[in-house]
């Protein structure tokens, strides 16, 4: 279990909900909707009890976005994307700040890079270049914008968003846990192997025992003709994966640039 803990724990903020302070609402409809929201989140997520209270909340105030958003979540997690989208669209219509949430979910659960980017770009524009953080807390959403662009094949635009976000967060000393890894992998895909190496080495300082990074480091060293270091890093990736380290393993979805043991073994086998 130790192997999973590093990332597993980080993924659960998605489930942790705080009670809203309903006294901030001045009108009776919002206040009532808010109180019902607070009751709904106390019941088990996705249960009939919880969903009915959310419906009551929405009935009290049809534009109460927190209830629309929260009611949508179990549909998303359980693969009913049509119902999720209906609720989420209404949340966004009621409060455009939910563009960030919808964009993140389109990226994570549906790999809908085009629509995810559109939402996040709108959130970026509305919020003066700061679209917020992902639901699981792992990402500044500018990183997700970069990944969306990369997956659509727009590498230059991807690097632009990576650089903007990382440079900004380096100044604030809040660089994300996987930011250098993703930019490094992107540079690798662009065949900029020296830039990839620089980022992947930075990632090892950020997250010392992440097997995924050493796998990509190994591949990068081979491209730079540093075969001995390449082999060392692949073996280290395997050792970390199996014994003393961590690997990416989100409980909901496969992460982008996630490495499997089969990838590491395949790379090691190709050396022989």
């Amino acid at each position, binding site marked *: 279990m130790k192997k*999973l803990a590093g990332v597993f724990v980080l993924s659960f903020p998605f489930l942790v909900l705080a009670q809203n302070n309903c006294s901030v609402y001045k009108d009776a409809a919002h206040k009532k909707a808010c109180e019902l929201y607070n009751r709904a989140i106390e019941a088990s997520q*996705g249960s009939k009890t919880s969903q009915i209270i959310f419906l009551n909340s929405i009935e009290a105030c049809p534009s109460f976005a927190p209830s629309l958003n929260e009611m949508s979540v179990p549909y998303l997690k*359980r693969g009913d994307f*049509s119902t999720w989208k*209906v609720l989420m669209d209404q949340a966004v219509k009621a409060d455009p700040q939910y563009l960030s949430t919808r964009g993140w979910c389109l990226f994570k659960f549906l790999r809908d890079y085009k629509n995810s980017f559109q939402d996040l770009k709108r959130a970026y524009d509305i919020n003066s270049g700061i679209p917020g953080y992902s639901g699981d807390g792992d990402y500044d959403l500018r990183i997700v914008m970069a990944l969306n662009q990369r997956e659509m094949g727009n590498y230059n635009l991807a690097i632009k968003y990576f650089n903007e976000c990382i440079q900004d967060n380096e100044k604030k000393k809040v660089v994300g846990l996987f930011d250098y890894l993703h930019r490094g992998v992107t540079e690798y895909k662009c065949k900029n192997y020296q830039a990839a190496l620089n980022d992947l080495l930075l990632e090892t300082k950020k997250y010392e025992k992440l097997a995924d990074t050493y796998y990509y480091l190994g591949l990068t060293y081979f491209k730079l003709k540093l075969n001995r270091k390449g082999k060392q890093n692949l073996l280290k990736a395997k050792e970390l994966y199996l014994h003393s380290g961590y690997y990416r393993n989100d409980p909901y979805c496969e992460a982008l640039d996630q490495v499997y043991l089969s*990838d590491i073994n395949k790379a090691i086998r190709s050396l022989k």
Partner: protein
Amino acid sequence: MPIKNCFFIFVLIIFIQSTLLAQNKIPKAEKLQEDVGDIKFDPKIDKADFYLCHKDFIIQYYNFGTSYNGGGRGIKDFIYKRYHYDSAYKLATGFITIRFVINCKGQTDRFRLSEIDNHYHPTTFDNGLKRQLLKICKALNQWIPGKDSKGNIYDSYYYINFKLVKGQILNITP
């Protein structure tokens, strides 16, 4: 324009509007299940002898790490190796989601399929395509049931979502 044609267009507009409205409504209280995503036993399509450790308590795959041998990569490799494109699928752009139960022994049943277009509206894809994807999902046979920290093993729900573009599988989640 003849009156007959005007009437036809009028009916068509009403039909399209009512379809769109139907697609854009939030769930009704009377239609809610005990838990979102529950799959009830259907004797017409489900195995009567499908064993469940806890008949009334089926968890979600993400609760206690229900997985597949080789993880998501194992599932994808299995599917991509077996999927065969057919020109009859060329209009299929959107998502097909297959949800099912993995029991405490790692066996599967209660498969349900849903289909939406790339605007997330319900749609209908080619039957052959749906049959093929269902057959492949049913053939996946290396499931690892969910287990809590005390070693209790659970039945769980899982889904496989296919992102399709013109009948080709562009991505598989989760």
